C-alpha cells in the first residue's frame, strides 16, 4: 500500500488500486476511457521514472521523454507525485531581447527566460490576463541562450498586432510552457521528412537543429511551402545550413506568385518551385516506409499531409505534427 500526491493533496492507494482509480475515488476529475491501457485518455506525468516505467507500454518516445504514463496502468510501489499533463507546464516571465522583421509579415522575437524545453515544443505567451497565443520554439537550448519565436502578423490579430507595435525590447512577458510532443526522436540513420508551411518553419528549425546536434546521419528532406514565394523567410540562412550539412536536401514549394504583391522584375524566385506541396511530396516520396516525419503549420496542412504520408507507408508512430489551431476564447489555457 502506498500513496500519491496530486495537486498538493495526498491520496492513499488501496491494495491493487491504480493511480487513476485512487484519484477518481478521492473525487478528482481525471479524464479516462478504456481503463485498459489502450485509449491513452488518462495520461498523466510524474518525475518518479522508476515507478511509471511499467505504465508506459504503447507510449511514443516523445511521451516517455516527457515522463508521461498511463494512470490506469500505474501501480506504484513507493509514494509518487503525479501531475495532469495539461497543467504540468511551468509558468515564468521572459524578457524581450530582440525583435526583427524577417519578412513583410513575420517578426522574429527572441526572449530570455528560464525554461527547460525540447526544440519544436511550444509556449503560451500572455499579453495580459485575457489575451494569450501559442508559438513554437525555433531555438535550441544547447545552441542558443534565448528562446526564438516566429510571429506572423495578422491584420486583425489582437496579439500579433500588439507584438508588432506595442511590445519593445526590454519588456517583460508572461510565459507558460513548454507544451507539445512534436520534437526530435528518431533512429539516427532513419530518413527524415521535415515539412512546414508558413511559420511552421519555426518548430521545424528547432527539430532540425536538434537532429543535427544529436548526430543524425540519415538523409534529411526539408520541404517548405508558401502560398506565394515572397512569403518565404530565412531563405539565405536555410541555404547556408543545407550547404554546410550535405545530408540536407532543401526544397521551397509555392502555389502562385501573388499579383497583389507586384513582384518587381528583378524579384528572383528561382530558388523555389511552383507546385502543389502535396503533389510534390506524392511524386518525390512515393514510398515512405521507414521515414520519420515531422509536419508543422496550419492544421489543414498537417492533417492532409499526415494521411498522405501514412498511406504512403510511414508508420503512424513515426509521424509527428505541430498543428497550428486558430485561437478562440474557449480554448484559452488557464491564466498563470
Amino acid at each position, binding site marked *: 500500500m502506498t500513496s500519491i500526491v496530486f495537486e498538493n493533496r495526498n491520496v492513499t492507494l488501496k491494495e491493487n488500486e491504480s493511480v487513476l482509480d485512487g484519484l477518481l475515488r478521492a473525487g478528482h476529475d481525471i479524464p479516462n476511457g478504456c481503463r*485498459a491501457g489502450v485509449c491513452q485518455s488518462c495520461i498523466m506525468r510524474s518525475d518518479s521514472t522508476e515507478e511509471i516505467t511499467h505504465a508506459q507500454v504503447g507510449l511514443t518516445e516523445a511521451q516517455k521523454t516527457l515522463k508521461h504514463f498511463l494512470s490506469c496502468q500505474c501501480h506504484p510501489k513507493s509514494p509518487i507525485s503525479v501531475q495532469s499533463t495539461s497543467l504540468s507546464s511551468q509558468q515564468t516571465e521572459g524578457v524581450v531581447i530582440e525583435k526583427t522583421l524577417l519578412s513583410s509579415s513575420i517578426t522574429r522575437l527572441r526572449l530570455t527566460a528560464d525554461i527547460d524545453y525540447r526544440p519544436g515544443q511550444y509556449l503560451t505567451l500572455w499579453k495580459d490576463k485575457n489575451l494569450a497565443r501559442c508559438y513554437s520554439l525555433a531555438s535550441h537550448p544547447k545552441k542558443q541562450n534565448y528562446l526564438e519565436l516566429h510571429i506572423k502578423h495578422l491584420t486583425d490579430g489582437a496579439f500579433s498586432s500588439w507584438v508588432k507595435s506595442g511590445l519593445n525590447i526590454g519588456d517583460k512577458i508572461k510565459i507558460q510552457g513548454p507544451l507539445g510532443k512534436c520534437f526530435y526522436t528518431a533512429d539516427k540513420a532513419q530518413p527524415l521528412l521535415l515539412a512546414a508551411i508558413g511559420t511552421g518553419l519555426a518548430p521545424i528549425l528547432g527539430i532540425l537543429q536538434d537532429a543535427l546536434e544529436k548526430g543524425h546521419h540519415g538523409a534529411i528532406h526539408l520541404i517548405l511551402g508558401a502560398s506565394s514565394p515572397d512569403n518565404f523567410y530565412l531563405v539565405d540562412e536555410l541555404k547556408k545550413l543545407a550547404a554546410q550539412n550535405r545530408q540536407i536536401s532543401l526544397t521551397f514549394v509555392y502555389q502562385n506568385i501573388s499579383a497583389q504583391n507586384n513582384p518587381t522584375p528583378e524579384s528572383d524566385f528561382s530558388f523555389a518551385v511552383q507546385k502543389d506541396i502535396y503533389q510534390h511530396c506524392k511524386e518525390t516520396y512515393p514510398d515512405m516506409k521507414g521515414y520519420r516525419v515531422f509536419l508543422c503549420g496550419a*492544421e489543414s496542412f498537417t492533417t492532409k499531409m499526415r494521411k498522405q504520408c501514412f498511406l504512403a507507408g510511414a508508420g*503512424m508512430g513515426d509521424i509527428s505534427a505541430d498543428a497550428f489551431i486558430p485561437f478562440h476564447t474557449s480554448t484559452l489555457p488557464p491564466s498563470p
Partner: protein
Amino acid sequence: MSLYEKLGGDAAINAAVDIFYRKVLTDDRISEFFESTDMEAQHAKQKAFMTMAFGGPNSYTGKDMREAHKHMNLNDEHFNAVAEDLVATLNELGVAQELIDEVVTIVSGAKDDVLNK
C-alpha cells in the same frame, strides 16, 4: 495459451494496426467513418478494436459497442467490409487460418451490438 498470446500480444497488434488502418482508410465502402482530423485518436481506437478482436485485455462491453455506433446508420455491408479488411490484414501478416477463424468468431459476436440490432 490464449488466442491473444498465440497471435503475439501487444507487439503483434502494433505491427497489424497500421496495415489495418490503411486498409479501412482506402476502402470506399467504409472510409468515410474513419476520416478524422485526429488520426492519432482514430488510430488508437483501431488498436482498441484489434485488441478486442484478438481476444486481448480490454474492458469494452456490448453496451459500449452499441453506444459508440448507434448514430452511424451502419448496415451489414459496412460490418462485412471491416471484417474483410481485418482478415486481409491477418493474411498479409501470415497468420495461420485457424487463428484467423477464431478472430472472426470474436468479431462476429459483436455484430448485433455494432449494428444495434
